């Protein structure tokens, strides 16, 4: 039985979609998870508190906080990031920023040549990022759906597209004659833990300055430039 209060645990917060998810992990191993389809402003802290109590882990013994910083829900990401950075500040531990697109890709165990993580950006635009089987990344980018479809031609081999959120682009299927389309309503706990374990945390002024990324297509383009 592992000592759960040994300072190796990471509390992972995901409020990027319709679900509020809290994961406690040790490295990439998930120790516990709670996920509710409800307003994160109301429930996030309560489910985190309940999960930690169930696992018998004290907040003060956490080693890191990880938080999904986007793309995703504007309000949800601001709640998650604000909550995580203040928790990190009070507990004086690093905060690990995590991309929702990276988590989508990590959650897809596909043997295809390329994987694209995709998310609705509103106004018929999408956020997307391409990944090779070795998880080399290309992007992230934001583009109109038609421009994104054109980009498929650059990936002639079979591809996997993982679509995240409540808005499904069902017409995408016809553009994937040699590929497959996965839909995810929420980010998977194992993938959250895996990506959090692979990313560095930030402390001090960098932690204080942490903000959500890619919550709006125009801001995304400005951030990229």
């Amino acid at each position, binding site marked *: 039985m592992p000592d759960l209060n040994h300072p190796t645990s990471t509390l992972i917060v995901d409020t990027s979609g319709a679900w509020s998810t809290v994961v406690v992990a040790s490295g990439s191993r998930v120790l516990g998870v709670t996920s509710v389809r409800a307003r994160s*402003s109301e429930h996030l802290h309560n489910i985190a508190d309940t999960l930690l109590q169930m696992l018998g882990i004290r907040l003060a013994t956490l080693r890191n906080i990880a938080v999904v910083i986007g793309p995703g829900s504007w309000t949800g990401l*601001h709640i998650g990031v604000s909550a995580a950075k203040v928790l990190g500040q009070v507990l004086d531990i690093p905060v690990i920023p995590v991309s929702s697109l990276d988590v989508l890709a990590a959650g897809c165990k596909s043997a295809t040549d390329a994987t694209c993580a995709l998310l609705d950006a509103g106004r018929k635009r999408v956020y997307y990022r391409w990944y090779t089987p070795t998880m080399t990344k290309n992007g992230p980018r934001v583009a109109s759906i038609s421009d994104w479809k054109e980009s498929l031609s650059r990936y002639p081999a079979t591809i996997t597209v993982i679509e995240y959120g409540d808005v499904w682009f069902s017409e995408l299927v016809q553009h994937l004659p040699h590929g497959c389309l996965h839909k995810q309503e929420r980010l998977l706990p194992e993938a959250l833990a895996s990506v959090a374990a692979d990313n560095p945390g930030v402390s001090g002024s960098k932690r204080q300055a942490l903000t959500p990324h890619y919550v709006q297509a125009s801001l995304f383009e400005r951030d990229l430039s």
Partner: protein
Amino acid sequence: MCKPHFLNATFPEVLILGIDTTCDDTSAALVEDGHVIRSNIIASQHMAHERFGGIVPMLAAREHTRNIGIVLAAALEEAGASYTDIDAVAVSNHQGLMLSLVVGLAAAKSVALACGIPLVGVHHLEGHIYSNIMGREDLLPFPFLCLTVAGGHTLLLKINGHSQYALLGHTRDDAAGEAYDKIARRLGLPYPGGPAIERLAQHGDPRAFAFPRPMIDSPSLEFSFSGLKTAVTRAIESFDTTSSPVPVEDLCASFQQAVVDVLVAKTLRAAQRDGLSRIALAGGVAKNAALRSALTSAARKKGFDTYIPEPELCIDNGAMIAGAGYYLMRERGPSGLTIDALANAPLGNQGITYRPDTKYR
């Protein structure tokens, strides 16, 4: 880090962290025993919103998220305190911009959860009312009348006790501060409009334009500023067809005098009608020197005592939230981690609704 509940023990000093992210200011404060301000940090977003001529809610949320950690650290440093010294967290979770409220609420819940201390949700307007007790040794005795006047509301409240309010009157349309902002925008003045108009009004003639004083003779304690705003707009437009420049200073002075006359007259009428000898002023427009001076002077002539917060406590700030939280937690108990933010929420134990055409939850 878990501390004993301060309400169950006799503490020599109770230190409350107050957080306010209701609109476009990010604020955190540490307040001792409900009234001694040890720090009150306010990060203004005026520069970020100025080029848009008003507050952009999504931009406000982004700035709150960026600033909240920095503001919390600054409040602790100025107070010479650490997170382990805090006994409770108070946060404004009711009334304001939803996208802004949730940032402060998330931060407050994180502090409460990590420190193992109670959390109390405070209605933003209650914070403004309690700004009258901040920095004072004595608690303003109940009952008293409070004119709460800001960009989003204009209210006359009878304050009977902690969280015990009676609504005597409110605006039927625009709030007084809203009229200031709209007139300022029409004149091309920088945001925020209230201070800009006040500065120009100091050099103008308040009798230059005979603007209406809406509902000033009505026995009702309700306000209306929409007609006044239209009258000022027409006056500005009358100069558009001539080669004469708009006499901005006279126009600002005349407009401000009309607003002040109505606010003072209605407030004194309310105090007389309800037999209240103490009058308090609160809200962002309470910072206006002309209003402060006129109300104090008129009230003194009628034998009323006036209580007006220091100007820096009239704007949105964390200290007033901490002060209100101290008393409201004793009255209602802690809120728990599942409180939510509400853009429009009823006020006090009686659930007062005070904005026309607004759906309350």
